[in-house]
């Protein structure tokens, strides 16, 4: 058979298989991310059916996947929403960082991955999955709940923190000297500030540049702008993903809504590819040795996220049940933990074991997060009842 034919058959099989997995996942009420990762593990080196000859496409597709993930994240927020969210939730955001980045950092240090590995692992355990959480809140009919704005503002804070964290991480991973590292961080901070100011004051001009009444032209312009900005950002040592995120923030109003609507299916397609490629590049046999560690990390960071959410909700005067819901809703980790792990592994600066640990961790947290959000109410009620019984006894 011709090479192209084989590649097409392989790609087709992967996409079709992912489609089936995705449907299965939402049907049983979990996120498809862990299934995509497992799919990648199965088709990769040392997996069940290793595939060859599609690396070039899958590599660039997964890059586009990350860019689209962050572009759409940026599109979801207007700059003013980010600013008010930041003002309202910065204390909760700081608690979030301290409680949830620490376990990852400690594990990174204990495993001897040095400060760089610790920084990467801190990011992996810190960042909740806005994608999974937004979907689960919608599915459970909790968007009207009082604790939901608290959850969302914590997520907004995390997303902004990512915009600062990712360029710092890429700089540190590049292993450049301290001075040029500082310069790169300085450049990215300046870029973020400029973008926020531009978005706040002149967002409509940015929107006007990409806007078009013709869907085809519009799609080409938005996608083109995103890839251009991402490429330039990565050339400037600021991560490509952050460039896309900032572009997303700068586009606002109805332009942003249209762009979201059009790009969503595209993002889902390429993001699925991103998870598969990450799975492809991970040796399946490397997972079992780190599984116990991942379980421990999962248990600890579940507790710390629940504490974060409950604390943030309590500050806003939410009742005990709502605090429990807010805590449990934040547990899910997913796309960004994998983005961080993928950047780290690609740089080669940290032991490959990190990929295995991050994969196992996200496999657990992406499955357990939605489940936790679902079962929190009966569990909290049981705890309350038991507490009442003990108190009265």
């Amino acid at each position, binding site marked *: 058979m011709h090479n192209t034919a084989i590649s097409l058959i392989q790609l087709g099989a992967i996409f079709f298989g992912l489609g089936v997995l995705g449907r299965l996942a939402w049907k049983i009420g979990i996120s498809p991310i862990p299934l995509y990762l497992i799919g990648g593990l199965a088709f990769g080196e040392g997996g069940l059916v290793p595939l060859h000859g599609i690396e070039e496409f899958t590599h660039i597709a997964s890059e586009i996947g990350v860019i689209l993930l962050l572009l759409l994240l940026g599109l*979801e*927020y207007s700059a003013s*929403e*980010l600013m*008010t*969210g930041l003002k309202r939730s910065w204390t909760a955001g700081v608690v979030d960082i301290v409680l949830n980045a620490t376990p990852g950092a400690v594990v990174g240090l204990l495993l001897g991955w040095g400060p760089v590995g610790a920084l990467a692992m801190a990011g992996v355990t810190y960042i909740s999955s*806005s994608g999974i959480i*937004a979907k689960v809140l919608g599915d459970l*009919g*909790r*968007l*009207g*709940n*009082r*604790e*939901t*704005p608290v959850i*969302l*503002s914590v*997520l*907004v804070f995390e997303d902004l923190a990512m915009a600062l964290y990712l360029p710092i991480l890429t700089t540190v991973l590049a292993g450049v000297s301290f001075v040029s590292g500082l310069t790169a961080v300085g450049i990215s901070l300046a870029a973020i500030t400029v973008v926020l100011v531009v978005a706040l004051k002149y967002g409509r001009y940015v929107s006007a540049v990409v806007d078009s009444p013709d869907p085809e032209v519009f799609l080409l312009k938005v996608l083109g702008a995103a890839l251009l900005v991402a490429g330039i950002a990565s050339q400037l040592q600021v991560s490509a993903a952050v460039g896309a995120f900032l572009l997303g923030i700068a586009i606002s109003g109805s332009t942003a*809504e249209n762009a979201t*609507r059009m790009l969503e299916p595209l993002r889902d397609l390429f993001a699925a590819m991103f998870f598969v490629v990450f799975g492809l590049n991970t040796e399946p046999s490397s997972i079992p040795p780190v599984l116990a560690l991942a379980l421990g990390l999962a248990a600890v960071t579940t507790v710390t996220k629940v504490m974060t959410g409950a604390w943030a909700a309590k500050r806003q005067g*939410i*009742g005990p*049940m*709502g605090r429990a*819901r807010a805590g449990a809703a934040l547990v899910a980790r997913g796309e960004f933990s994998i983005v961080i792990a993928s950047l780290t592994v690609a740089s080669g600066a940290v032991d490959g074991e990190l990929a295995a640990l991050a994969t196992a961790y996200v496999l657990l947290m992406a499955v357990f997060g939605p489940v936790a959000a679902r079962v929190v109410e009966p569990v909290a009620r049981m705890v309350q009842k038991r507490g009442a019984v003990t108190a009265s006894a």
Partner: protein
Amino acid sequence: MNVEVTPLPGIGTRQDFMIRAGRRMGVITYRDGRFELIISKEEDADACSASIALTPAEAGTLASLLGAPGLVAHLEHQHKDVAGITTRQFPIVPGSRYDGETLAATELRTRTGASVVAVVRSGNAHPSPRPDFVFEGGDLVVVVGTSEGLASTADVLGGG
């Protein structure tokens, strides 16, 4: 009424208020224009017992259904100054005598001296209906007249 407006970053806006029964009631407006009617749980005002997705048309219909009594009250207010004249609403019971009949067929004006000022159907008010207006089961007929006139109107529209 104290309506609380809460931005939901990335989603839209929630607008709700406490009702006397101790529950929160309101609407989530999504960025793309969809609506959701929310009603909080009885035992936990933070949570929602129902969040019902509504199309813009459905939301409009619900709004005017709830607004109909307001319309009648408004008419009543208009006629308040005229002594001895009151406004009342009468339902056309589905399958009853005038379900499917024209306004003219009731001969209401001749028989009672009261006059029909509006008909509220599926939340929409039809002001000053013409004699050829055909009633449907479920219509609310808004009638203005003296109290005797309104009493006989009840007989006419209720019994036949």
